[in-house]
């Protein structure tokens, strides 16, 4: 096997006294999509945020996280991101008060060409709504913006947290296709509840349970073994399943 792009070893996170991750270890392959699975509240988001250095201030992280030979722990988030770690958060976090264009402009990096054509080709909606304030976009539109923002730059690894949450089936398909194309050129660590999406994208899978890695290996293998999936994820995968796991839009919009 090729050298992993990211290695998580014995990662342990406590937040406000709760021991959320208790010694999680897994590699992320240098190509394709590695998907992180697990029930609600098991700590998937916590894992991604620990990798990108966004654990809340009352939290404590132990263990090692390495990208190549470089340790990522204790380095400020903005440096990690500049070094090629792209992050799309669970609740999207677009800047509600800025326009779509400004949201994108913010993601530009000094000294690097911003790939606007790639983003607009994937999400033509963003180009049309360039002057609309991001806060007034619908949930799905905001998700597109959040993904678009990170695709503006070349990254060594993308961390994406539940990108299809709250998206209409049609948009889920679109986003999945986009991610599939993205994964051709860069590795992705994906948190996803929608098993249909997982089936389509994932090469490797890591399943978390009770704060630890319960299973790791080939994703398609996992999905084929109904019994295994059932025991790990609590659902059968006998037939293509438009998962109920599709989550809803959160964030600052609507309501």
């Amino acid at each position, binding site marked *: 096997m090729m050298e992993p792009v990211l290695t998580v070893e014995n990662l342990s996170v406590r937040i406000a006294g709760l021991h959320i991750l208790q010694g999680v270890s897994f590699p992320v392959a240098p190509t394709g999509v590695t998907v992180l699975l697990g029930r609600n509240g098991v700590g998937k988001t916590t894992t991604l945020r620990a990798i990108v250095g966004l654990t809340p201030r009352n939290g404590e992280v132990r263990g090692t996280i390495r990208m190549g030979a470089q340790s990522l722990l204790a380095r400020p988030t903005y440096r990690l991101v500049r070094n090629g770690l792209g992050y799309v958060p669970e609740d999207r976090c677009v800047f509600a008060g800025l326009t779509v264009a400004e949201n994108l402009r913010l993601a530009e990096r000094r000294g690097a060409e911003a790939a606007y054509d790639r983003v607009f080709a994937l999400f033509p909606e963003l180009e049309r709504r360039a002057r609309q304030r991001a806060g007034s976009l619908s949930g799905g539109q905001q998700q597109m913006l959040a993904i678009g923002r990170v695709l503006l730059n070349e990254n060594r690894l993308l961390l994406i947290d539940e990108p299809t949450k709250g998206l209409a089936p049609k948009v889920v398909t679109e986003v999945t296709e986009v991610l599939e194309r993205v994964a051709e050129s860069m590795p992705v660590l994906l948190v996803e509840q929608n098993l249909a999406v997982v089936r389509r994208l994932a090469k490797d899978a890591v399943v978390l349970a009770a704060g630890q890695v319960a299973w790791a290996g080939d994703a398609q293998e996992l999905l084929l073994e109904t019994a295994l999936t059932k025991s790990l994820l609590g659902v059968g995968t006998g037939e293509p399943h438009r998962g*109920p796991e599709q989550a809803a*839009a*959160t964030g600052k919009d609507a*309501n």
Partner: protein
Amino acid sequence: MLATRGLTWRIGEVAIVDGVYLDLAPGEFLGVIGPNGAGKTSLFNLITGLRRATDGRVLLDGKDITDLPPHRRAWLGLGRTFQASSVFGSLSVRENVRLAVQAHRGGSMKLWRRAAADREVAAAADAALDRVGLAHRGTALAGTLAHGEKRKLEIALLLAGEPRVMLLDEPMAGVSAEDVPELVAVIRSLTGESGRSVLMVEHHMDVILELADRIAVMHHGALLACDTPETVMANATVQEAYLGESL
């Protein structure tokens, strides 16, 4: 039971919700689907009074409630959940539900009684928690719950209010696959009781198809169709606008 008459909400020139006529019969379960940005959440906001309609009326039991503030509508039996979980983060889970029960039992000012002493309220709250399977998290602070757990708490808050018309905004969002059937069962049981009506937005078609008596499809703020699930699913426009090609 609940009806909207040409309900419209404009921001500037744009109609976010565009002349919606809806009728919800007692005991009926109406699913609402539509692409992202179709105006589903906005419609809920208009019905519950969080936003003021620019045009049109909302009727509950034939009574015009368009100009009532949110809490008055709640008294009349209108309850909702939020798409983005909105629970009382600094209260414990149990306190959250107790507050909802208390609100339902009449919001008179009680400054001098001990809240904890009210056994009836506590019992009702625990019952609601039990129903969504959160009883074991009763003492946790609601703010520290994982996303999925907050969704359940949202529903418990709604249950505690015993509303006659319930508006559920993507209740399944972020709920573990494992827990979905359980939650679906809870929601179904709601409708069975005493002619309660439900209006539910959900992107998850399985759930909608399983629960809904009728499905309304929204697109660009307007009501595209409102019919039985079979008819709606067969509708070509709906296919094209919402479902897209299957994965």
